[in-house]
């Protein structure tokens, strides 16, 4: 004896797995439930958010050599902008966007600098945020990852070594390039050379005269400026004096660029122990020049 029953057909649920999702960074196809892009290791949450909110966020790169202060700069920028009212401020999109701000500020409040960013792209903190300005009707969606300096260095020296960096920089609309002012002052030329290589790399990445990097805004931020007399007063003069090659390259190869000075620690000391070796620690936190370069970039993005 047979009995007819109504069996719900749930195979349609599998359909979403059949539909590939494009990574927002490298545009490779991924499965629906992938957490990171299988090709470039960028978080797929960026693609899901872009699809669900029907917006295409713009992307801004924060670049610079290792230990220049990218994590501190980006974390501090997010925290400062999220605490301001009635001015330019940010709204994080998704919980993952707050992680960088949280870890950076927790470390600084303890009187330490945050841990070095690892070279594994799947461990990087990505910030997806909405920028709001009282004078602008429509908010701006932005994506800014905190990439490891060594990985950037590797990609600049060996293009395609890091697919995520290569793809991201191709799509970027602007860049904040960080340079260690204290090392420049001390005559260490690696900062100068690295930044020159980075700028050359960007130009070669997209050399289109109308839409390439030559026309995209680049803010050159001299970090740790609080440790260098005169840097905050006139950052461009400081760059001209201590990084003449870089300054000349900016003039020749970029149409929209600006020099800025930033600092987070009022003074620094060192801590030494058996396990960590010698580490620099901030004696107090008093941010300067963090928002200005970002505001300058936004003028060209809106």
């Amino acid at each position: 004896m047979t009995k007819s029953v109504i069996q719900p057909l749930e195979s349609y649920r599998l359909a979403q797995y059949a539909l590939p999702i494009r990574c927002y960074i490298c545009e490779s196809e991924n499965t629906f439930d992938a957490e990171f892009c299988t090709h470039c290791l960028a978080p797929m949450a960026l693609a899901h958010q872009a699809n669900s909110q029907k917006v295409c966020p713009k992307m801004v790169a924060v670049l610079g050599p290792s230990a220049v202060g990218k994590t501190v700069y980006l974390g501090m920028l997010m925290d400062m902008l999220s605490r301001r009212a009635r001015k330019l401020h940010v709204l994080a999109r998704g919980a993952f966007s707050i992680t960088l701000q949280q870890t950076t500020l927790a470390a600084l409040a303890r009187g330490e600098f945050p841990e070095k960013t690892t070279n594994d792209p799947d461990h990087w903190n990505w910030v997806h945020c909405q920028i709001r300005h009282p004078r602008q009707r429509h908010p701006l969606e932005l994506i800014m990852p905190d990439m490891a300096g060594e990985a950037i260095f590797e990609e600049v020296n060996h293009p395609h070594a890091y697919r995520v960096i290569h793809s991201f920089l191709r799509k970027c609309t602007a860049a904040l390039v960080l340079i260690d002012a204290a090392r420049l002052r001390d005559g260490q030329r690696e900062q100068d050379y690295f930044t020159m290589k980075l700028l050359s790399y960007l130009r070669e990445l997209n050399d289109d005269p109308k839409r390439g990097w030559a026309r995209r805004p680049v803010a050159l931020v001299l970090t740790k400026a609080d440790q260098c007399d005169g840097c905050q007063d006139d950052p461009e003069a400081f760059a001209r004096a201590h990084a003449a090659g870089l300054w000349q390259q900016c003039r020749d190869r970029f149409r929209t660029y600006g020099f800025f000075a930033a600092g987070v620690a009022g003074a620094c000391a060192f801590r030494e122990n058996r396990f960590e070796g010698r580490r620099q620690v901030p004696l107090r936190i008093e941010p300067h020049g963090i928002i200005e370069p970002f505001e300058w970039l936004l003028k060209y993005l809106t």
Partner: protein
Amino acid sequence: MVAARIPPVLSATAALSTFNLLTGLFVSSLWLSGAGAVGGAYLLLRIAAMRRRKDGDTPEEEDQQPAVRPMAVADRAVDPNDTDALVAQFLAQGRFPLLLRKQVAGNLTPGQLEKAVEALHETMALIPEGEVTVGPEWRDEEGETGEGEPAVPPRVVRVQQLFLDRYPVTNRQYFEFVAAGGYEQMPLWDPAIWPAVLDFVDATGEPGPRFWKCGCYLRGQENLPVVGISWYEAAAYARWLGKRLPTDAEWIKAGSWPVAVSATSRHQRKYPWGDVMDRSRANLWGSGPEKTVAVDEFPTGVSVGGVYQLIGNVWEWTASSFRGIDCHGDPLLLPTPMKSIRGGAFDTYFDNQATCQFQSGETLLARKHNVGMRCAVGACDLVLARLVETGENDRSASHEDGSAAGAPPAEEVQT
């Protein structure tokens, strides 16, 4: 029929067109006159702006201009034999502690002494003697202390009775020191630092704080706290006044106002106004205009003893050395010797770095945009203290302890 029907329509249309035309003309004339007025006003504003630019006197630049040099007290010549004039000069310069020294007070008339005492009470707050806990206390944003026992435990320090400036030193007050030739009076300066004194110049190369111009503070900044001074300049200024820089313990005592709750413990405030952070009471990052403000602003942040702006506006130099302790209480390696600065500034970001206990350090030659000073003087260094104790108006009262004038008292440490 058609011809008969057309004229009314035409006439109506014509009437409507005429009405529209007239209305349009009227509105246009109104708009034109309005636009003309707006345009005219705009043109006038542009011309005014161009004129200002031509003269190099834009509003932003106005703020960067040095103030019209005020008449300094030292500019008026005083007969060295005229005691009254000399006393008046000292009082006008704020150097009344020198008048209250045992060597001088005995030679003053009661009226002169009274004026000096009045000036003392008006500008300085009395901090009573007592014990205060001074120690590493670095709490994170959640208010939790570091894990484990700190390598350097907190100290209990006994502080002698002292007077502390109610307000940070202003540009106008410091100008008196500069105008009186303070940078040329070498006895005021530590001999080891004499070669560096020549380098303590302003933006135009004149002796003075780093951000001044032509030996004078900038326009409109007379009541702002003086900044851009090294520890040596702060110490020399205090010495010129007959005062000194407060020690760490004295500064903390003035702010945290400890109250003994038992024989061995005391309650100390975290902030001068209480134990809870209230950013509206201090000029810190996010609560002020992101620059220094006049020293009498933020009156709700006053301490129990009547000292203003201990927290916020500018860090303050102290006489104590910075020991360099991290969040776990472990000692830090300092690139150069540092002096302790306290109180936080207008750009201090974290609440836990704007407490009475938080200590930061700065190199002695640093001339930062957010480090200022306030002065102290030990009550035991003034004749006033003996007058108060004995109730006698003994003009010849002398001081018994023999401590060097202007030197901070030795700290008694109890474990």
